């Protein structure tokens, strides 16, 4: 069977790399005695695919992985895993999905990133957001594979909200993710830093990953095909 799992990765684990996270989950699967399936052949590995990958430095509230395993109640999976995982990683939900369902990488096309900013006024942020909305292009140096290129973020930014956080304002960006246009958190950080001192940006994280169909957003747990 194939399980889709939604988890959170707290600030304490924000510096894990993709590979670190993969090893951590694999070892947790072994400690929890989960009946995972191994690939055949040269170098057997667990059928685990981390569909969403948090870059080093970022933490996330709703991330996802898929796992192939023998029959097991999803609730039992969640319970046993949460017993052995470090407190900063929590499994929130999981559900069975068809074996032939497309991978998370193929499905997820939208993400929200949140930046917490102190010592600014709401008016300043309003002006900032209005300017971004009204710009026809928002060029920043690309942080992805094509490093020397300039990337236009404008058409990948769907919406920006300003929320009141505990002791900071939160700028929340709903952006395009994956193919064909991937907006990275560090590119957004560059965009904000052009107008706000980096010292005032006290935290940032990914709030969620979604599947956008027309104008509706679905969670990868709702929309599996």
């Amino acid at each position: 069977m194939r399980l889709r799992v939604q988890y959170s990765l707290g600030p304490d684990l924000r510096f894990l790399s993709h590979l670190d996270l993969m090893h951590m989950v694999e070892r947790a699967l072994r400690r929890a005695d989960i009946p995972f399936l191994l690939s055949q052949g040269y170098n057997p590995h667990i059928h685990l695919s981390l569909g969403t990958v948090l870059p080093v430095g970022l933490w996330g509230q709703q991330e996802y992985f898929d796992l192939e395993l023998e029959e097991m109640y999803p609730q039992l999976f969640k319970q046993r895993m949460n017993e052995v995982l470090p407190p900063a990683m929590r499994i929130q939900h999981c559900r069975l999905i068809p074996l032939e369902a497309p991978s998370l990488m193929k499905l997820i096309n939208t993400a929200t990133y949140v930046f917490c900013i102190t010592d600014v006024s709401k008016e300043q942020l309003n002006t900032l957001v209005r300017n971004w909305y009204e710009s026809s292009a928002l060029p920043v140096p690309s942080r992805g594979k094509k490093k020397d290129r300039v990337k236009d973020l404008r058409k990948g930014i769907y919406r920006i909200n300003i929320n009141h956080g505990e002791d900071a304002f939160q700028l929340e960006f709903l952006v395009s993710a994956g193919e064909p246009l991937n907006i990275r958190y560090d590119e957004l950080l560059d965009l904000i830093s052009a107008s706000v001192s980096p010292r005032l940006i006290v935290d940032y994280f990914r709030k969620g990953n979604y599947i956008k169909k027309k104008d509706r957003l679905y969670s990868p747990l709702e929309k599996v095909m």
Partner: protein
Amino acid sequence: MKDKLFRDILPWVSKPIRYTGGEVNIIRKDWQESKAKMAFAFPDVYEIGMSHIGGKILYGLVNEKSQHLLERTYAPWPDMEERMREEKIPLYTLESFTPLKDFDVVGFSLQYELTITNVLNMLDLAGIPVLAEQRSDQDPLITAGGPVAFNPEPFADFFDVFLIGDGEELLLEFLDMVDQTRNLERRQRLQKMAEIPGIYVPSLYEVEYHEDGTIKSRVPLYGGVPERVRKRVIPDLDYAYFPDKPIIPYMNIVHDRAVLEVMRGCQRGCRFCHAGVVYRPVRERSLEVLKKQAELQLKNTGYEEISLASLSTLDYTGVDRLVRHLVCSYGERGIGVSLPSLRVDAFSIDLANEVQKVRKTTLTLAPEAGSQRLRDVINKNVSEEQVIEAVEAAFQSGWNAVKLYFMIGLPTETEADLEGILDLVNKVRETGQKYSRRSVEVRASIAAFVPKAHTPFQWVVQNTAGELEDKRRYMMRQKRKGIKLSFHESYTSLVEGALARGDRRLGRVIFHAWQNGCKFDSWSEYFQLDQWVQAFQACQIDMDFYTQRMRSMDEIFPWDFIDTGVSRKFLQSEYNKALQGELTPDCRIADCTGCGICSGLGVELSLKEAGDYAFKSPV
């Protein structure tokens, strides 16, 4: 401090996960409830320090089995150090982000001489005076242990206390004393500690020198301070603590797997080998104990690989049964077994085949010297035929890469011995070509021999950097297809050599080198020869006195007062036999060789499984 680290510092350094702590199986003891508080400091980066078994043992031992507390700290990489100094963050422990200065004890693990500059740097980053004599009653006690502590003298200026030998018993006794004496002044405390067997307090001795620079005498300054310090030995490993629940790092470390210590010590008696003397005698763990430890450790870590560690794992009397057990019990779950070093014989290859049912990677063998004559000199009892047989067996069963370890600069070495290395490497490749369908690659890693204290070669002259360079050039004079020779840095081995057989006067040199920016000297990209040379000059100390001088047989050595249990008479007879090319057999097979360890320390060889296989080969 943690908030500041996470927000202002870690996003800007390389591999920040080294500095965050919070790993699975971390132990956070209550500070107030704990008696002595000790920081275990490893003077190299996290991924190296976390790979070290001794640290895992002591961490679990103190935290699980005593009322004391032990937290970890590692050397920050220079980019992190720079940030910490800029932001005025003192060196802290990963468990509780407590500055080192707040601990009762900071204990360093000395695995390699050249890490000493990192010790000084870490103390400085912690705001603790680097020199022992400048510390006050409020400063932590700075201690060190590990193989390098068997010649503690070059490092005497920086440590209050050295712990000599197996730490399992000694460390707890030491921490008890730390707790009991906390109201005494520093000197009195140290005197109390010096009474514990295995503890050496350098400030309680005075050393006098002859005019030629050799040692005239060393005397204790107070009554009750022992003249000789005898290493501590755990007599039976079955009753020694071993962690069932080690910390699982988040980042990929050098040895990222579960580990069993199948035995401690090695009785092969290679004459260049420091570990072979200081870890004597051989003590094995029983199969049943190891099986249980494997089960618990795998259950508690979820590791996908388990490794059998020791100085010479293939000599463990139960090795074949243990390997088969592990492969049978855990292989189906995708858990692999790894053997760290292979002996040169067909048995090893059989066993390795067992372990690597699917993956055939590089076969590693260590003939150490290129000619039979020189192998006899160093008591490396292996013949060319055995090497070739092992390689044949390996290639026949599907391996296609071989790595060979050699040393150059060994005593009595001539050009013929260097030729011997090249010949042997060629023969290995030819053998490979015969059996393998693909093109075979043979790599030879060639290290410079460094004479070490407490070994039969403690008297000899070390090669100069020039000599080593000439030898390297000679061996590299023609390129050979499918053969890769790699040489260790010849200059680092000189500084290593000076420290390995150095005395107290080198403390000034080390201090000077550190002040001039030396750190991470064991990393070739950071080693600065010119700074070391300058440090020796500035202190008016001749490096050649330590590396280029043939010592007389009756010279008093700086390390003589550290009693490893092996007699100096035995070392001397081994040296004489070396010059004659005479072999000394392994005492597990032949008679007692009279090294003195068993009678001297009141211990004995502890062989547990009496397996047939391990003794099949004399190698």
